[in-house]
């Protein structure tokens, strides 16, 4: 059986958080391939390269985990650009942040982000959230068969360990 690896792209400038993310994928039942970029410009460049290389192989990620606070270009700006780009707008984007502010989260939902996660301070919770989110996305991707998976309701937008449990 061909193992289909889920392509995960992580955009985060924080070394520790990138380490946590990698560690969170250890022992995950779903097979994944993780690519990391460290700032917004790097991210958009990578995506542009991948879009242009599409005639060869589809190397666009299946899901993007996007940190809000990054140097050069932050997550909000990247999200806006991605969703305006016809070739990129179907990419499910999971927003990450250390802090939570209702106005910011509302804006992110309006701009088409798929889920929002406030980085939990407990590592095991962090691991669980990441794994459950990826599982959720994988499920939606296989269910829909098409590239375009719809945005969840605003009530389900913010993922915590509890509500991602109930969704799966």
């Amino acid at each position, binding site marked *: 059986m061909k193992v289909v690896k889920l392509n995960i792209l992580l955009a985060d400038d924080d070394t520790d958080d990138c380490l946590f993310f990698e560690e969170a994928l250890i022992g995950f039942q779903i097979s994944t391939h993780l690519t990391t970029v460290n700032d917004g410009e790097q991210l958009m460049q990578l995506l542009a390269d991948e879009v242009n290389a599409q005639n060869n192989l589809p190397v666009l990620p299946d899901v993007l985990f996007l940190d809000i606070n990054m140097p050069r270009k932050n997550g909000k700006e990247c999200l806006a650009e991605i969703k305006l780009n016809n070739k990129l707008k179907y990419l499910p984007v999971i927003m990450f942040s*250390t802090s939570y502010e209702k106005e910011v989260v509302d804006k992110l939902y309006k701009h088409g982000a798929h889920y929002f996660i406030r980085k939990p*301070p407990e*590592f095991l919770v962090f691991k669980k959230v990441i794994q459950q989110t990826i599982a959720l996305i994988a499920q939606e991707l296989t269910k829909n068969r098409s590239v375009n998976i719809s945005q969840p309701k605003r009530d389900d937008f913010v993922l915590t360990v509890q509500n991602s449990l109930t969704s799966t």
Partner: protein
Amino acid sequence: MIEQELSIVRQELYLQREENAKMELELINAKNELLFLREEKGKRAAELGIANIEFVYEDNEKGKRAAELSIANKELIFQNIEKEKRAAELSIANKELVFQNKEKENRAVELGIANKELAFQNEEKEKRAAELIIANKELAFQNEEKGKRAAELIIANKELLAFTYISSHDLQEPLRKIQTFATILLANETLSENGKYNFQRMQAAAGRMQQLIDDLLAFSRIATTELKFEKTDLKMIIEEVKAELKDTIQEKQAIIEASELGTANIIAFQFRQLMYNLISNALKFSNVNIPSRIIIKSSIVLGDKSISEKLSPKKNYCLITVKDNGIGFESHFSERIFEVFQKLHGKEVYGGTGIGLAIVKKIVENHNGIIIATSELNKGATFDVYFPADN
């Protein structure tokens, strides 16, 4: 001798015949005269008749004239009486006029004084006008300065908000790392019990700092953001708060009654924060043995000075009450609890930063209102929020 006497008698007869002829002539004359006189008398009688008629007529006329004259005399007497009255009045009027003239002279003198006064006042007025121009220039300058200060203040507030946001965010990140690494270390089974305990204490401290940052951020945003009032459904606010506190409500098996709620003119996001803080406090300070019951009501009331000096009896206020059945507090702390960083318990007993009610008070002030806390130990607490209904 008889011849002589006859001659004498003939002479005498001749004389008498002459006499008689004369007398006949005289008689004829007299008769003619008499006729003439009779004619004349007739004429005279006719004339007299006419004259009499004339006379009677004139008599009548004279009678009429006399009557008229009598009336005229009465009229004249009346007129004379009137004339005397007029004369008397005129005399009084003259005396009055003399008096008025004296008064007029007095007034003229007074007017002269008043005019001098007025001239003086005008001089003073001109001096005041000059001073006023200077004062107005000063005021215009002050207003400019005030405008500049206001603009500077707006910029300062924006900078403060940005600074607060950035600093709180940048403070949170290393904090989170401390917490995360603590959890990674705690998952390590090779740690001794003591080692685990130490890391847990470290975790708790980091958690408190996290809460403090969240509260400070909330506090600064309440103080620096613009105040926009809009008509809001209070039920909706409570539903949102209940959703945010879903886990705690379930944990405490709390019942929140919020059926008697209407709409009010409020700053929605601030008011949500206020209700969140009050309700989360009610949940936090609930009685261990008694399931938490929180009742939230709203109504419109007239200001009552006996409740607070700041309530005007002529104004309508929106009153929102949050009542719980928790552990309450001693009534003499009813004002202290609203001060920043004031807590009534140690941090080991009940968590919290001591900022929650300070935020509530600030929000109430932003709504031009007041908040009153009433409680007794172990008898729950009631928070009454009053703010003008026409905000």
